[in-house]
């Protein structure tokens, strides 16, 4: 049904998993603490699923990320679709071989004989005082890896719709959930949102902010603020980072003549570099200002509050970057 409900991202992800499990008996969920015996996850994202669909389909695992992703890959080769959870994105570092050398490459290396329809759900983000090993945005690594798609919703409705699409996708998808934003509520329509399509969250004529995940909200705040001064900022939420929606982003910059990419990940060698390089080349000689990037500081995520706050781009950082391009 198309009724719109208000819920937060925890509930939206839970609902998407619920609807997917109900729709297709071949869909499985696994990860640390995901079953109800373990309270449906440390944040409760998978609460109720094992009770509703059985412990065989929603399985808690030991702490063994290589085995988790390997089990997901193997089961997918056996005809299932698996949603595997890697609790925090930094923990993908112990499973990179399974993700990069196997999940992303098996279709190509087998000449299309096999494919790996799995979704790797993972949460991350600074702002929780979790320090250097629990907060990184590592999407650039996966965007640089042919064969795996990278999705990062910024709100509950996108979380629902993109997760449904990721599960339906025939190739591996890494699905990044912004932990500090989990509890922000919003309207959710139970509709699938196709991968690879960005959304113009706010229209504007003076400058385009290309962003995603945790940086959409502060970007919109800046647009809102500057609107008062008659500065019209367009905000494009990528939603899918790889493959990214060149068409929508280019159309927006074509219109505004200015582009700013904003992400929480460390700026250097981040996703923003690819988009800035592409736009600077494509619009060479036709832009009103250089394409700039705002990203996380070049350091591990610090613990102490003032440092952690300073690490991630703030409304002020984004605003001054926008003003710099309009000056």
């Amino acid at each position: 049904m198309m009724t719109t409900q208000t819920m937060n991202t925890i509930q939206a992800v839970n609902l998407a998993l619920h609807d997917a499990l109900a729709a297709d008996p071949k869909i499985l969920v696994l990860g640390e603490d995901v079953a109800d015996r373990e309270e449906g996850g440390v944040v409760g994202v998978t609460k109720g699923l094992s009770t509703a669909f059985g412990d065989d389909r929603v399985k808690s695992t030991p702490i063994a990320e290589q085995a988790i992703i390997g089990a997901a890959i193997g089961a997918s080769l056996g005809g299932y679709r698996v949603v595997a959870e890697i609790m925090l994105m930094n923990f993908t570092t112990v499973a990179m071989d399974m993700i990069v050398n196997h999940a992303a490459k098996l279709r190509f290396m087998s000449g299309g004989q096999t494919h790996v329809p799995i979704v790797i759900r993972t949460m991350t983000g600074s702002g929780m005082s979790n320090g250097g090993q629990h907060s990184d945005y590592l999407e650039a690594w996966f965007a640089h890896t042919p064969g795996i798609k990278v999705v990062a919703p910024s709100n509950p409705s996108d979380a629902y719709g993109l997760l449904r699409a990721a599960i339906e996708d025939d190739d591996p998808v890494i699905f990044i959930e912004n932990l500090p934003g989990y509890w922000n509520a919003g309207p959710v329509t139970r509709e699938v949102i196709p991968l690879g399509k960005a959304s113009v969250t706010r229209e504007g004529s003076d400058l385009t902010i290309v962003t995603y995940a945790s940086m959409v909200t502060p970007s919109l705040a800046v647009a809102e603020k500057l609107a008062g001064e008659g500065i019209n900022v367009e905000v494009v939420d990528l939603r899918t980072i790889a493959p990214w929606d060149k068409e929508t982003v280019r159309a927006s910059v074509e219109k505004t003549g200015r582009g700013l990419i904003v992400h929480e990940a460390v700026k250097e060698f981040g996703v923003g570099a690819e988009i800035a390089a592409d736009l600077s080349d494509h619009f060479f000689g036709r832009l009103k200002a250089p394409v700039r990037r705002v990203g996380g500081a070049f350091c591990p995520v610090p613990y102490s509050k003032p440092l952690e706050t300073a690490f991630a781009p703030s409304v002020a950082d984004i605003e001054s970057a926008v003003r710099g391009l309009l000056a």
Partner: protein
Amino acid sequence: MSNLPKVDAATLVAIYKKASLIRHNDLRVIKAMKAGQLVTPYYSPAGQEIIPSALSVSLNDGDTICTIYRGTHDMLAKGFPLEPLWAELAGRVTGSCKGKGGTMHLTHPESGCMVTTGIVGSSMPIATGLGWAAKLDGKGHVAVANFGDGAANIGAFHESLNLAALWKLPVIFVCQNNRYAEHTSFANSTSVDELSKRAAGYGMAGVTVNGNDVDEMYGAAKIAIDRARAGEGPTLIEALTFRFNGHLIGDAAGYIPKEEMASAKEKDPFVTLRKRVLADGAASEAELDAIDTDIKARIEVAVEAAFKADLPDIAELKRDVFAYELA
């Protein structure tokens, strides 16, 4: 090893056919390389023929295997057809992977050869997932993970065995202990004298057998496979063997003491098997010769077809990265 299931005459001949195919195919590959016709990193399984031959006679079509770069013996024993195998080695579009995977990634799902990996240890997590799928399917199928002695010291081994034992998955972990990992001897890389001793640490059945002895290997494999089909969980089989060539063709294996190599070749398991078949009267000299002749002929057909076939078109770079072709 006593009271093992005995190998009947028909089975013995079936095993001989597989071993002969593996041995003659290996010699043919090396011949093609020496002739400069085939240029590829080739990891010869010579000396390890009995292990997959004696194991595979207890496998069905629905059973799957994951193996490694040194895996043509495992594949041929499981039923990987010669034509797509040779065409893949030759990098042709008619290869099982359209030439995209190559020697280290030979794949053929129809025969149950699901994954061939070039990463040490990585056959295990994926086979564990295939075992999970088989358990969910409930049809009594099993998954086999082939790996070497060196792979028994990497993390993926540990995570896979713990998970497979915890979930009582129908997986047979076959460690083909050929005493060397590249240039490193078993004793210089492993802190225990028998790898099967590690099984107890997972509450898993484990056994060390002479993998070159058809009775021991057949018996141990049959027990493990029956156990898995019966839902009684995984088994770790350490199959002692030896490799007759360097790590890959081109490696002179100077790190292997001459006497060690000589005494191993003296006990050539294929020669021993042939003697055994004759001694048992399972087949006559003439019958075995006929088998060998037929196999050699089939191999020649595959070799010829392979090198006659076309090389893949550059457009293949854009195919099989994802389900759809890239622009």
